[in-house]
């Protein structure tokens, strides 16, 4: 774990080409999600070479920021999302994150977690795994964890979660090239993850599988019918309402349109 991407001799770093905000055309979209204050913006800055404002307090990023990079010939668009504790919540900044993960069809979602309080962070990671398989779990802030005498067994974690796990310290750049490599493996389909699903068997999963085709019939092309089915089974009134009014399809269409047409521009966290 001592790869440094600023070192010009290192082959991994020469494969990375920071593109800043000049993304232009891109091949893949990668979303950065995670609990507040886990260093998503630091990861974003380290990869894109941008200077998205970072700060040591939860809730700093209120809107999403986008940047790009090139890795081994492929162009990526990286989307930094506001921190969120759960995909079930209602605050506006969290909704931005939720809508993008659910309906923005990222080619890969990187869940950035805090190594010093992994257990709490895994709640969101498991929720994301519940709805998507194209996930990389990035255990960040390893430098801080080491100072606190915490080690993470990435191999065991990866086996349990069923997706690639990478240990990083975004501020020093440790582990970032491994992260880029894992993202590449997911987007190109080099590896097929088998994400951990809670309540694997039983009536709940049966009910979900029964509803999914019905949802797909009503809203064709809606990504994450699985999430919608789960919310319906949970009795979420807003999702019921959204199905009636066609709002869900609209959100999905908006996220798709955004992905396809809007020029790359960076939105700094606190200034508009």
């Amino acid at each position, binding site marked *: 774990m001592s790869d440094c991407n600023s070192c010009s001799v290192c082959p991994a770093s020469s494969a990375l080409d920071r593109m800043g905000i000049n993304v232009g055309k891109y091949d893949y979209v990668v979303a950065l999600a995670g609990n507040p*204050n886990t260093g998503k913006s630091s990861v974003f800055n380290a990869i894109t070479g941008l*200077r998205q*404002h*970072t*700060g*040591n*307090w*939860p*809730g700093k990023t*209120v809107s999403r920021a986008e940047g790009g990079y090139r890795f081994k010939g492929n162009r990526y668009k990286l989307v930094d999302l506001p921190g969120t504790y759960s995909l079930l*919540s*209602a*605050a*506006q*900044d969290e909704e931005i994150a939720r809508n993008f993960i659910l309906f923005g069809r990222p080619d890969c979602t990187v869940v950035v977690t805090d190594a010093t309080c*992994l*257990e*709490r962070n*895994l*709640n969101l*990671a*498991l*929720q994301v795994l519940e709805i998507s398989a194209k996930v990389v779990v990035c255990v960040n802030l390893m430098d*801080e964890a080491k*100072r*606190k*005498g*915490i*080690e*993470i*067994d*990435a191999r*065991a*974690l990866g086996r*349990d979660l069923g997706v690639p796990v990478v240990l990083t310290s975004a*501020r020093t750049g440790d582990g970032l090239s491994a992260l880029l490599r894992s993202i590449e493996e997911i987007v190109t389909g080099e590896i097929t993850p088998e994400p*951990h699903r*809670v*309540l694997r068997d039983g*009536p*709940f999963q049966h*009910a979900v599988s*029964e*509803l999914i085709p*019905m*949802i797909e*019939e*009503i809203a064709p092309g809606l990504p994450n019918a699985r999430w919608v*089915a789960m919310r*319906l*089974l*949970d*009795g979420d009134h807003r999702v019921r309402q959204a*199905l*009636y*009014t*066609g709002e869900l399809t609209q959100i999905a269409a908006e996220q798709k349109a955004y992905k396809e047409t809007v020029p790359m521009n960076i939105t700094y966290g*606190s*200034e*508009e």
Partner: protein
Amino acid sequence: MNTPTNPTEALLARAQELRRTLGSNFRDELVEAIYTDAQTIADRAVIRSGSGKFDFDQRIDRLLTSPILGLPLMILVLAVVFWVTIAGANVPSQMLMTGLFWIENAGSSLFERLNAPWWLTGFVWHGVYRGLAWVVAVMLPPMAIFFPMFTILEDLGYLPRVAFNLDRLFGKAGAHGKQVLTMSMGFGCNAAGVIACRTIDSPRERLIAILTNNFVPCNGRWPTLILLATVFIAAAFPPKAASVAAAGSVVMVAVIGVLFTLIISGILSRTVLRGTPSAFTLELPPYRRPSLMRILYTSFIDRTMFVLWRAVVFSAPAGGLIWLLANITISGQPLALYLTDWLEPLGHAIGLDGVIVLAFIIAVPANEIVVPTILMLYLGNTMMTEEFSSSNDWRSLFVGEHDWTLLTAINLMIFSLLHNPCSTTIYTIWKETGSAKWTAFGALMPLALGLVVTFLIAQAWYLFT
């Protein structure tokens, strides 16, 4: 909007049915399953070896967030930050002023030698350029000192502790504890503070936070406060205590701002925006060692230069406008004089004067230019021969030539805390609330409050002196 189609009805009906078969505690089951799995997986992956670092963090937290010492320590930290800013900004400000006004004089004499028309020389050098020079000289040094210190506090993780300390007070006012974080952003820029209110999920509490954000003085107003504190408050103390007294008075203004935030939040949540404060969890992040390069980058490029650039953009046209007002004459009197004479009664009633009121009107686009505008209006068309190398020179201009008293200084400080937000912030409030009514309220309520408070202070002052 589509009319409900049969498949939708069928889906929802089936979902309801399945829901019943799953039982009412299925949601708890799912959440519990996620928690249990998270715990098992984390237990297998995390290897802990005992360390003292964690205890150290907690020991500091016990002190900084203690119910008794938390608030005084916070005010002390704020006071130290201002004291360093005031003590450190003095000398570079004077050097900048000397240098920049030397350029003005050199530039205008060059124009004269080239036989440029007098109005061109005046407009360019004594108007546009002078406006720029004042803004840079008055604003740059305090910002270049204040912002790095603020960024260090932010990076260390102190801001959430402040929110924790003030949460009880904000709860009593019916407001959200996260409002403190949005206020901290307001210290930098109120427009940024208003945007930061998105982190508050309850619409009622979010609106309260947006409407009261203006009660935290933004960096456009710090230079005004610091200058007045240095020239008037510090002068009333012996030299050794002067900068401490000046810092203390600036902290006082900040505390008054917080008090008004609490009072107005309380009034709003008991009248038009009734409701109970919602509970929320706030993580206290670990203390992190700030990275030097990042602090320099954030505080100079993102903050100082961003703010300075904005001030420069607004001060150049303002400088030109002021020069025109001072040089376009109607029946032998400059236009500016008509305006200030007309505003004089209002100014006097609130303990200020017509020039100061006009300066606040010209400075609606950017609060940064209040003091430079006052100076330009006072100095009129004169060459910059006057030296401003010590606070005595400022005093002789304000007190000696324009009859300022301690009342003028106090009320100017209060009025710069309590008045309408700048146009950028007003626009941001409109964008964030989407309501013309609340935008108007957010703009006019602080102005009305400022007028009432300064009026009462002035009348009391006139009564007793």
